[in-house]
């Protein structure tokens, strides 16, 4: 199993550890519900050093990325990031990722840990443009500092004016006396805050500085368990659950990152454009339980008579709403907001209504 710069620290802090994407990662510390509420109301720190980072450079970087990703990289200014995905040539998704426009002719891709090798191979075999590719996954570590108090904690450690960095904007600067830290106004929680990228050897210095300054704000370390409940309350897709090689971006509700710009030709463009125009037979929806219960990945979604109309891809109890929430693919005729659907739990049909995520507000006062 691989380690991050923080693995020994998680163990010393008493986290429940588990293998995730080949890394020994913290699942929970004080408990998923408690950690969830800390991020919604205060500030929490996630070790996400397992994520993958690729650099794409040179004059061919832009045409390469335009071909491989669905979003419009030509419209991405320097200092901004965009959410996008790699279509797989068969109407499915290789991975979802962030593209950072770092310098002219220099981009950073941040991909899911479980897909690092698959994505890297995909980039290499499709690089007929001759972009310069560099897999820096093992040379970059990452912490996500999330929550309504994240900025006031982080601001004490840098001269960079964090309040001037817009959502999905980033700057490179000195942080906790460590040079060249990427300070990115992004996250996977809906609670606000920043994601920081740095060299692994600087990890402990950065962690210690954040926890020292964050103490008065009630800062806590957060595990992957709460990361999942937090992203699910926002309706953010998780690769491997809600999207994968068999789901199209249009079915997944990712039409907003699929840009059919006139001068952008990309993998699966014709197919996806046709899906957008003609419609798809199933769609990823959000749903909320009307009775007690917790939906889980793999449960059957049915009509009122128990006939299968799809499957749950992600589910949990919402710590904020205290009801079962989830996502799943259903036949398009059931995908309208307000539709009544049922989830089969051990033979019992639990009624639910289709809702449009986010399920709740990302920040609670």
């Amino acid at each position, binding site marked *: 199993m691989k380690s991050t710069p923080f693995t020994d620290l998680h163990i010393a802090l008493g986290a429940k550890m588990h293998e995730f994407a080949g890394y020994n990662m913290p699942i929970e510390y004080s408990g998923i519900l408690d950690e969830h509420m800390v991020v919604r109301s205060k500030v929490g720190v996630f070790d996400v050093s397992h994520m993958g980072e690729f650099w794409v450079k040179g004059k061919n970087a832009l045409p390469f990325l335009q071909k491989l990703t669905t979003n419009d990289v030509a419209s991405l200014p320097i200092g901004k990031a965009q959410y996008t995905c790699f279509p797989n040539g068969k109407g499915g998704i290789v991975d979802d990722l962030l593209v950072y426009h770092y310098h002219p002719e220099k981009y950073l891709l941040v991909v899911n840990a479980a897909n690092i090798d698959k994505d890297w191979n995909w980039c290499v075999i499709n690089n007929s443009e001759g972009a310069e590719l560099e897999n820096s996954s093992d040379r970059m570590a990452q912490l996500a500092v999330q929550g309504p108090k994240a900025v006031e904690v982080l601001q004490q450690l840098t001269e960079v004016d964090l309040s001037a960095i817009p959502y999905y904007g980033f700057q490179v600067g000195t942080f906790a006396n460590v040079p060249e830290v990427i300070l990115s106004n992004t996250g996977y929680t809906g609670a606000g805050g920043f994601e920081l990228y740095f060299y692994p050897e600087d990890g402990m210095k950065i962690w210690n500085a954040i926890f020292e300054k964050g103490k008065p704000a009630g800062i806590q370390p957060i595990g992957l368990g709460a990361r999942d409940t937090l992203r699910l309350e926002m309706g953010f897709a998780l690769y491997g659950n809600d999207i994968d090689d068999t789901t199209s971006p249009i079915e997944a509700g990712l039409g907003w990152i699929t840009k059919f710009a006139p001068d952008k030709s990309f993998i699966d463009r014709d197919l996806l454009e046709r899906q957008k125009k003609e419609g798809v037979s199933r769609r990823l929806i959000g749903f909320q339980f009307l009775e007690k*219960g917790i939906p889980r990945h793999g449960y059957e979604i049915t009509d009122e008579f128990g006939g299968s109309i799809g499957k749950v891809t992600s589910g949990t109890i919402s710590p904020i709403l205290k009801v079962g929430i989830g996502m799943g693919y259903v036949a398009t005729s059931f995908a309208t907001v307000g539709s009544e659907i049922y989830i089969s739990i051990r033979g019992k049909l639990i009624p639910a209504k289709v809702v449009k995520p986010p399920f709740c507000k990302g920040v609670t006062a």
Partner: protein
Amino acid sequence: MNIPENLYYTPEHEWLRVEGETAFVGITDFAQSELGEIVFVDITAVGETLKAGATFGSIEAVKTVSDLFMPASGNVIEMNAKLNDHPELVNDDPYGEGWIIKTTLTDSSEIAKLLTAEKYKALVG
């Protein structure tokens, strides 16, 4: 890990406490710790007579769900109503306030087949 001496245990991490004709059933400290925060307990078998090993309900934690099994054959006469509003009692006091069902045992000879505290301790390390 808290494993009281006066209880009987199953390899599925239930405990059984015999009080005359009736017995209380819950899950062990080890089980609640593995499950994490419990958010509700779903008991489907009140009023039913079940064989040892049969499912009498399920317990839902944030991250996972687990079936609950009868440690010994019996009639499920009551569930702990407090758990409806306070499922966290199973985490906070698994052998006390967090008991799950009350049963009348139909075959007390089955108790001898359950694990003693010592054997259960060996099982969970």
